């Protein structure tokens, strides 16, 4: 498990959350946008309708005006009233500035009366006789692009036929057309005014455009006056124009005719009215789609800005938090792993070490009982855990155990029990080494009892000591063999010599016997005497007389030598069994000197200075002999290294004396000494300076073990390089504390 894998979903989540938020926002925006479009479209539609109605109203007013004027016209005579009419029209025009021109045109198309007097008598241009207007529609309306009567401006012409009945001086009725014209700019004015009002209502709406188209789709009025006269929106495919001219009202999103933008167009037709000519005009009011979305854009900008302003720090915060969380998790995880590992390690350790662990809650109730404990005590963990420790059936000395536990509780210190005997039914006693440690817990004081079955160890220690003993015995055997072989050799030779000598002497004696017999018989036989003499010469009797006693004496000496060495050997190897007793150390030292003779005699003189009043000390003599032997052998080797190749000999001095209530043995040699660098190590097991295979390195380790551990004594070494070494062994007469000695007894 790595850091990167954990919580990988967090950034994904953040991205997802952001995406969802963005999606919701976009959805909202699009909803809002369509709402805005809808609303604006409706507003534009209403604006178009309003404008259409206003225009319609304006046109209807004009229609009313026409009716009014129509009514007053017949009151005056044709000739007399022509001027009057003109004056009248002028008055009307002045009163209603909306009118660009008001006039009366005869059937021939000539202007008869005019608000502009200059126009009287002129051709009325596009005005033509419209004929009697049908009963339904008494008025015609048409657009005029270039109205010559109104300075070439675009106008809307209202025309209605007027028949003036014959009056004085004229018999036939006068038929003509009453014409009023208003400028498109007036309509424009209406549109802009209403839009202006509307703009106020609709908040500011920049870039609003409008067109008024006729039933053909031709643009009559437009906001920017750019379309030109020929622009036909239906031909340009503008849907809004089509629909408006078809009499529909509504709004639509469409392409702008000139600019490459989308526009939202509200459209409405000029409403129809009874006895009013159908114009079929359409009103289009537009705003750019973009302008509609203006608020949205600003909203998006605002949202984006604030979103960024809020979200980015949030993101950063979240990432930072995540980072921190990860780091913390990592630490926690590492700690957990470490702790788990520790637990595992502890388990493994507990499972693998020879030692057993027992934990006692509050120094009494078993809370931990390892496999080794199960094996050692033959009590399973299930049987032990939760039970009072003292209630378990363990056959050891509970007094000692209780005392030890009490001591731990009281002193809060570690208590060690070096050799606790465990007497399990049906097996040999086992020895345990126990360590009781206090363990302070939240609830109180636990005791951790760690123990080890040292039975095997003790056996091994014993074996090792035996092995070393055998090693030194084997070493001695070679020397002893030599010591014994030499006397054996010459005693054997001497016996053979004596046997031959006795045969020879026997032969001489036979002669002498013959001589004696004949002498007793009184005869003297020269011949017999000569034979005796010859026989004595033959056997070299003189030689035999000299050599035989010597041979006998030397044989005695040889046998004595053999006896001595064998006895010493026996004493060394079996000094009264394994039991400890009060022993004479001087005698033991002499024995050891004897058995080791062959080790030192070629390289050293041996001097012993043994205190005659040395007290006997309580000890196991075998191991003590071993110690002395080991040190003598080492001394001989040390000297041997120094005197090698010379005729010189070194010296080994052994002395004993009483020191306080014990004895001191000093064994000095004149060898090469022990360098200070290794002086510390010489008592370590397996430490040796001898070549591989020439020593186990156990000698001094065992010496230390015997003197210190078994007998409660001390062993020290003093050494000077090139001068020699002295081992000092101090032994108490009776060891104060040496359990192993007691138990060995």
């Amino acid at each position, binding site marked *: 498990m790595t850091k990167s894998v954990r919580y990988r979903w967090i950034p994904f989540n953040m991205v997802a959350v952001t995406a969802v938020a963005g999606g919701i926002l976009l959805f909202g925006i699009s909803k809002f946008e369509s709402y805005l479009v809808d609303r604006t479209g409706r507003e534009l539609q209403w604006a178009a309708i309003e404008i259409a109605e206003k225009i319609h109203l304006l046109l209807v007013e004009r229609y009313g005006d026409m009716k009014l004027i129509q009514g007053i016209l017949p009151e005056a005579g044709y000739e007399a009233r022509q001027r009057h009419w003109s004056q009248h029209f002028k008055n009307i025009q002045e009163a209603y500035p909306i009118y660009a021109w008001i006039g009366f045109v005869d059937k021939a198309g000539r202007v008869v009366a005019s608000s502009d007097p200059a126009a009287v008598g002129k051709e009325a241009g596009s005005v033509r006789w419209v004929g009697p207007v049908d009963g339904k529609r008494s008025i015609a309306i048409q657009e005029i692009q270039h109205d010559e009567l109104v300075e070439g401006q675009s106008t809307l012409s209202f025309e209605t036929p007027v028949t003036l009945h014959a009056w004085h001086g004229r018999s036939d009725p006068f038929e003509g057309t009453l014409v009023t014209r208003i400028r498109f700019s007036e309509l424009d004015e209406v549109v802009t005014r209403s839009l202006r009002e509307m703009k106020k209502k609709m908040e500011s709406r920049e870039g609003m455009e409008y067109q008024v188209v006729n039933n053909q789709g031709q643009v009559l009025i437009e906001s920017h006056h750019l379309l030109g006269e020929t622009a036909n929106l239906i031909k340009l495919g503008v849907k809004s124009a089509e629909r408006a001219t078809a009499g529909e009202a509504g709004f639509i999103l469409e392409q702008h005719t000139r600019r490459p933008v989308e526009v939202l167009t509200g459209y409405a037709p000029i409403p129809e009215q009874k006895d009013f000519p159908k114009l079929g005009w359409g009103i289009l009011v537009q705003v750019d789609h973009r302008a509609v979305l203006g608020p949205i854009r600003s909203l998006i900008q605002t949202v984006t800005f604030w979103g960024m302003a809020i979200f980015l720090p949030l993101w950063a915060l979240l990432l930072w938090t995540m980072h921190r969380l990860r780091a913390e998790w990592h630490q926690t995880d590492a700690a957990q792993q470490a702790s788990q590992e520790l637990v595992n390690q502890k388990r493994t350790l507990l499972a693998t070490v020879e030692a057993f662990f027992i934990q006692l809650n509050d120094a009494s109730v078993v809370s931990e009982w390892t496999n080794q404990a199960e094996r050692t005590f033959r009590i399973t963990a299930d049987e032990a855990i939760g039970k009072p420790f003292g209630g378990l059936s363990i056959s050891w000395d509970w007094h000692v155990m209780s005392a030890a536990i009490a001591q731990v509780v009281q002193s809060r210190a570690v208590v060690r029990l070096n050799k606790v005997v465990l007497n399990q039914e049906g097996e040999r006693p086992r020895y345990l080494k126990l360590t009781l440690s206090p363990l302070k817990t939240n609830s109180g004081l636990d005791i951790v009892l760690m123990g080890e079955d040292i039975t095997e160890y003790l056996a091994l220690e014993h074996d090792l000591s035996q092995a070393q003993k055998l090693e030194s015995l084997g*070493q001695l*055997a*070679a*020397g002893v*063999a*030599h*010591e*014994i*072989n*030499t*006397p*054996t*050799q*010459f*005693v*054997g*030779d*001497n016996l*053979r*010599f004596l046997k*031959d000598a006795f045969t020879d002497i026997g032969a001489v004696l036979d002669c002498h016997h013959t001589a004696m017999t004949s002498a007793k018989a009184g005869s003297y036989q020269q011949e017999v005497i000569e034979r005796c003499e010859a026989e004595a010469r033959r056997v070299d009797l003189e030689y035999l007389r000299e*050599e035989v006693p*010597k*041979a006998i004496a*030397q044989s005695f*000496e*040889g046998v004595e030598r053999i006896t001595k060495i064998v006895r010493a050997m026996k004493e060394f190897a079996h000094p009264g069994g394994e039991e400890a007793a009060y022993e004479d150390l001087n005698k033991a030292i002499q024995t050891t000197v004897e058995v080791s003779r*062959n080790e030192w*005699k*070629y390289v050293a003189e041996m001097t012993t200075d043994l205190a005659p009043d040395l007290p006997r000390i309580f000890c196991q003599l075998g191991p003590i002999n071993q110690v002395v032997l080991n040190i003598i052998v080492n001394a001989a*080797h040390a000297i*041997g290294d120094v005197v090698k190749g010379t*005729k010189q*000999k070194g010296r080994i001095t052994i002395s004993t004396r009483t020191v306080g209530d014990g004895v001191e043995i000093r064994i000095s040699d004149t060898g090469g000494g022990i360098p200070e660098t290794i002086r510390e190590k010489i008592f370590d097991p397996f430490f040796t300076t001898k070549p591989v*295979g*020439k020593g186990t390195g156990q000698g001094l380790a065992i010496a230390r073990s015997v003197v210190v551990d078994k007998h409660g004594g001390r062993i020290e070494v003093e050494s000077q390089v090139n001068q020699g070494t002295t081992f000092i062994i101090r032994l108490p007469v009776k060891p104060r504390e040496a359990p192993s000695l007691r138990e060995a007894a």
Partner: protein
Amino acid sequence: MLNEKPTTILIIEDDPSLRDSLRRTLRKRGYTILQAAEGGEGTMLLGTHAIDVVLIDIFMPGREGIETILQIRRSHPQVKIIAMSGGGERMHIDVLRVAKASGCHQTLDKPFSEEALINAIEAQLA
């Protein structure tokens, strides 16, 4: 012994009892015996007497048997050398093997029989 010239044997042995017993045994067989208590004395006798066989103990104080053997091999290569030893090892060295390596002709492991001794000598003289 039927040789015109009697065989002369030099015994180099530090132990007087063994030296005497060897002398007695060999004298009985008619050899001429010379004795030395240590190596230096032995090599001196080699310079002054015509010696056929040297019987030498390997373990002696002072000059070691091995050193003496080496010296005799250098100064009197014609002399046959028979080395004796108490057998076994000393300071973990198989000395008889060392003796053989250093040039002695025969080794005798104590205790040896009279017959073995005579056989060894005769083998060297043959």
